[in-house]
């Protein structure tokens, strides 16, 4: 019986194709909007998470001074970090995978008649490990180069593109500020980071070379710490804080005069905000789904009036009221479910192109697809109920007399 009724409902829908399509449109748009918005939103979230991940996994960054909200920037009075601080962290803090101290500066780099200003980082090979840089061509620093502070450098792909265009940079000599420096390695491009900075626009040299020949002091600006996988970055950050307070003689009651940035924490905050935004967008789109349901109810009510005679015939030849009700309920449900399926297709195709246009990853959201499907079927049941009941309660004599 149920199959015969579904078949009947399908035939009824096909019999009035244009009206059926228009009826479905509300649900199509509603479901399409939900799918598209949630997919794009999740794509954005994934993109942000990925970008932050590119800065280095489980990365903690220590720098001297504090960021004050008042706009004063770094506290001027804070003593700089030293290489000993990095060594102490490596030695004394539990749950640390790698530590890289970095002396940072910026300088003009010149090759032939190409030149650009870029950031120059003095560190050792652990810098690449902690910041998740990989060599594309050439090599990292040798032990001798690191120890002696040789004038060798590893460059990022942006610097390579600016100075060398398509040529092979390995073995060439570039000028970094005032010193001549041999390119020994080229890094794989990491692309833009979450906050828009170009992570490939850098030159890395052994720390001693930078300190001696560019900055002229033995300060280090940052210590990058990679927390061990599975170790909470928060816990490691607390240990770091305790160690540094002790080393920098911050007595009880004094604020930190250094800053620890926890990438995982930042990532969590940003993804959290992005997820909340996605949910909000989805909820707004869901409202249009309800509006679509009301559209179905509207058309079904008109349809009941229009088909009053037909209902009268069915009742007269022996249909139960409940069977007529089932027929109209199924018609509404089939319409809304069909609309849901079409909406899912549109939503997926739409979000695929939208993701491409915004250079976001395309994220298939199976849970939302399933949810939209169930919800659209439910819309038909809920909004089909009233018209169906109206049809079932018709008096066959009245219905047959209806013109």
């Amino acid at each position: 019986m149920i199959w015969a009724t579904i078949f009947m409902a399908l035939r009824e829908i096909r019999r009035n194709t244009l009206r059926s399509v228009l009826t479905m449109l509300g649900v199509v748009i509603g479901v399409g909007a939900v799918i598209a918005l949630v997919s794009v939103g999740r794509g954005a979230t994934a993109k942000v998470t990925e970008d932050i991940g590119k800065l280095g996994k489980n990365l903690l960054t220590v720098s001297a001074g504090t960021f004050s909200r008042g706009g004063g920037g770094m506290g001027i009075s804070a003593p700089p970090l030293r290489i000993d601080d990095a060594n102490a962290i490596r030695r004394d803090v539990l749950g640390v995978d790698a530590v890289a101290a970095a002396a940072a500066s910026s300088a003009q780099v010149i090759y032939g008649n190409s030149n650009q200003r870029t950031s120059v980082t003095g560190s050792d090979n652990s810098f690449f490990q902690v910041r998740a840089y990989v060599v594309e061509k050439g090599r990292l620093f040798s032990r001798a180069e690191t120890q002696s502070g040789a004038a060798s450098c590893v460059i990022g792909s942006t610097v390579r593109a600016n100075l060398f265009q398509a040529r092979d940079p390995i073995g060439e000599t570039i000028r970094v500020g005032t010193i001549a420096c041999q390119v020994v390695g080229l890094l794989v491009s990491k692309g833009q980071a979450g906050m828009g900075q170009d992570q490939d626009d850098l030159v890395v040299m052994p720390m001693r070379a930078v300190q001696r020949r560019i900055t002229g002091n033995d300060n280090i600006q940052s210590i990058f710490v990679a927390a061990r996988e599975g170790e909470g970055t928060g816990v490691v950050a607390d240990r770091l804080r305790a160690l540094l307070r002790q080393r920098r003689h911050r007595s009880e009651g004094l604020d930190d005069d250094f800053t620890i940035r926890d990438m995982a924490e930042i990532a969590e905050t940003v993804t959290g905000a992005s997820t909340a935004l996605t949910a909000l967008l989805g909820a707004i789109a869901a409202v249009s789904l309800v509006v679509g349901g009301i559209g179905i109810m509207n058309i079904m009510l008109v349809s009941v009036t229009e088909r009053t005679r037909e209902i009268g015939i069915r009742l007269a030849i022996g249909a139960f009221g409940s069977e007529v009700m089932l027929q109209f309920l199924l018609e509404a449900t089939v319409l809304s479910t069909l609309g849901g399926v079409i909406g899912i297709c549109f939503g997926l195709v739409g979000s695929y192109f939208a993701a491409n246009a915004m250079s976001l990853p395309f994220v298939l959201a199976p849970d939302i697809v399933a949810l939209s499907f169930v919800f659209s079927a439910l819309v038909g049941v809920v909004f089909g109920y009233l018209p169906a009941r109206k049809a079932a309660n018709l008096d066959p004599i009245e219905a047959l007399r209806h013109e």
Partner: protein
Amino acid sequence: MAQSRSLIELSGVHKHYGEGESEVRALDGIDLRIERGEFVAIMGASGSGKSTCMNILGCLDRPTAGEYHLADVKVTDLPGDGLTMLRRHYIGFVFQGFNLLARTSALENVELPLVYRRVPRAKREERALRALALVGLEDRIDHAPSQLSGGQQQRVAIARALVTEPEILMADEPTGNLDSARTQEVMELLQQLNRDSGITIVMVTHEPDVASFAKRSIVFRDGQILSDTPQEEHA
């Protein structure tokens, strides 16, 4: 069963509409027996109560007072779904306006009552084809009502009424929308069905010509039976 009953038995049936001053007595004490195999014409002017009587006989409506027995079932005691079951199993309807489903083939129209009786698909088609053959429309099964003449449409409606093999065929002004040639054609079909298949036919009409095809003629006036006479079968 204390006594063997007729197929249809109405005793003291009243149908009143409205209340108090404005009360209308559409049926005012009807006693009527119809046996199996009869062909009865119910006549009367409009407002005489003949359509109301038809609705009650067809289990589409309930009397205000009185008793109705159909095939030994006391209809007046049944709940609403019980009336539907009686319609399903005992009664086939033919209406003045044909009342076929538009944009639906003759075959599917005829199959419709069987759908509600949960007859399997293959069986449904077979029986519908047989019913259509009975009314002489076996070569029109794929035509929609709009592609058929009035007489053909009414024959499809008769096939739809017959497909369930009912005890009674209820025809409400079956020729009201037809010209005289088609009227002749449909009435001869009804007569032949009554004679050959022994099906009981109760037909409402206001045309004496049409009524003359029946074996018995009952005339209503003001909610009461004015006359009830057997008549010669029309040639």
